[in-house]
């Protein structure tokens, strides 16, 4: 029955694609579908990290700011003349480090809820991004760096390949490895997980580090695509990533959620924005529609659970 959980969002995605194909002649073209995938790639990576956190019944408000900080860090390293590999390494390291801070504040300092620790790093990371860049965008990055965000292999954009590969790895991680299964167990019942011998603190730190790392990866794609590391990158992106995870069928109470559901959630948001852009619908309406879709997707899930409960009794 697990696949049923993703049926709601998947159905919504298909309905949206059909509707938009009817209403805009430009929508269902190879060019545009790749366009949607590329536009969704940053949110998809942030949402994947967010998913891990939400499975543990946590929340990561800092991913958007980590994205901004990493974008500035990688752009500055490149501008300082460091090699691309070193710069990318620094970018990922910064992301993972802020993630580690989130995890450490939660498990070592025992802050009561990840909302607090990540709210703190959200502010700190954004502030640091503005400080080290002086508030200015750092643009004109080396062409050989920009392949990560801007180029394509035959017709498939590189960011899309990155997303698919990373999602596949995390699918294996979550479903086939012991650490991955532990993450679900912690979200299901942290105390029970602890007493059954799972090193809960260590796993939680890893989860937040991975979330930060993925935000760093997203920064590489974004800076490549925009040819610039700008300190305001990813403002509000944490909310988009949470929306994608929730639309994708994960539960805020932890223990539930899949990698592919989240991908569907991120794509659904990308399809909506792109489709409404093609129809010349104002950006203000887009936010209304996305809000409505969040309610719709979660309500479907509530209905499903009610039906299943009835069947059981």
């Amino acid at each position: 029955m697990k696949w049923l959980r993703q049926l709601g969002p998947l159905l919504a995605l298909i309905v949206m694609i059909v509707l938009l194909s009817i209403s805009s002649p430009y929508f269902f073209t190879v060019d545009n579908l790749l366009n949607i995938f590329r536009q969704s790639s940053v949110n998809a990576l942030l949402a994947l990290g967010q998913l891990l956190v939400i499975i543990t019944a946590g929340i990561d408000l800092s991913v958007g700011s980590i994205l901004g900080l990493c974008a500035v860090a990688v752009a500055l390293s490149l501008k300082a003349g460091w090699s691309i590999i070193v710069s990318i390494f620094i970018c990922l390291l910064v992301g993972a480090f802020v993630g580690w801070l989130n995890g450490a504040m939660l498990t070592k300092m025992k802050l009561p809820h990840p909302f607090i620790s990540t709210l703190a790093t959200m502010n700190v990371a954004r502030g640091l991004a503005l400080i080290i860049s002086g508030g200015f965008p750092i643009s004109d990055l080396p062409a050989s760096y920009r392949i990560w965000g801007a180029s394509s292999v035959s017709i498939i954009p590189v960011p899309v390949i990155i997303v698919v590969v990373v999602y596949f790895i995390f699918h294996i991680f979550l479903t086939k490895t012991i650490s991955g299964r532990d993450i679900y167990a912690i979200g299901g019942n942290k105390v029970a997980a602890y007493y059954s011998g799972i090193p809960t603190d260590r796993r939680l730190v890893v989860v937040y580090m991975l979330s930060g790392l993925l935000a760093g990866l997203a920064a590489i794609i974004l800076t490549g695509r925009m040819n610039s590391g700008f300190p305001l990158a990813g403002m509000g992106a944490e909310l988009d990533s949470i929306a994608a995870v929730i639309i994708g069928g994960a539960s805020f109470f932890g223990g539930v959620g899949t990698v592919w559901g989240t991908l569907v959630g991120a794509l659904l948001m990308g399809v909506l924005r792109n489709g409404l852009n093609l129809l010349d619908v104002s950006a203000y309406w887009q936010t209304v529609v996305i809000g409505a879709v969040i309610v719709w997707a979660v309500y479907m899930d509530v209905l499903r659970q009610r039906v299943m409960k009835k069947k059981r009794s």
Partner: protein
Amino acid sequence: MKINKIFLVTAILFFIFGCNTVSNDGYRISIITKALDSEFWQKLKQGAEDAAKEFPNAKVSVLAPTREINIDQQVNILEDQILKRVSALVVAPCGVAEIIPALDKAYDRNIPVLTVDTDVDWPHRLSYVGTNNRLGGKLAGEYLIKALNGKGKIAIIRGIPGVQTHEDRVGGFLEALNAAPDIEVGVLQPANSERDLALTVMENILTSHPNLDGVFITSDQMALGALEAVDAHRLSGELVIVGFDAGEEAIKAVREGRLTAVVAQNPYNMGKQSFLAALKAAKGEPIEPRIDTGTALIDIENVDRINP
């Protein structure tokens, strides 16, 4: 029962989307502004739409991200419009460097690109339609020098760093100040063209620099936010405050004596001129690389003459 409801919702959705049929004939001009959240952008939109009424074979759509800082959202909108193969694009870029990869795509597909309000450093842009911001900044600087008799301490509140419009306004302003060595710029802070942020920034400036004589603020929304802070500190009328844009609210503030002066832009004309130039470009006719939409300085002396 439940199935019926789902069916109903789907039917409504079909209706909504079905109404937005796209016509392929004639010229389609897309104008993508930084936002639509202020009178400035609304007037620009109005100017473009009014101009388009004269041309039955041309259609204009004015689109924007939700906030000026949403650069990636603007890039997405731009890419989507390019995919639709519109006849010509007019852009007011949220980020002058970040937008260029998207503009390259437009060039690859032979879509003419113009800029409005804010220019970009990109070899293929056909024309820049807008205020001469450097000149506007200079006007503001000269006015402030005169109002302060060439002596005093001032603050500058500016838009997002790196955006050429604000760089030019600040640059022109500072250039004018070179003539007045006794005027000291105490603070230069960004408030991202956002009203609420400008209120906070101004409050902080007034607290840390109590002996301030004047302020230059590079957009209306920020000026109006800053005025709230000035009023709250009961300093209204005591500071020389010069703004930029001159929308209706700012004009009213000049009449009331809260805002000393404002450099006026003409967003309605920007919308109109950019549409007309884009239509020409779409038809393959030559256009001027620089279309000035006019600048003027408004204070209590001339406000009734310029804005009756």
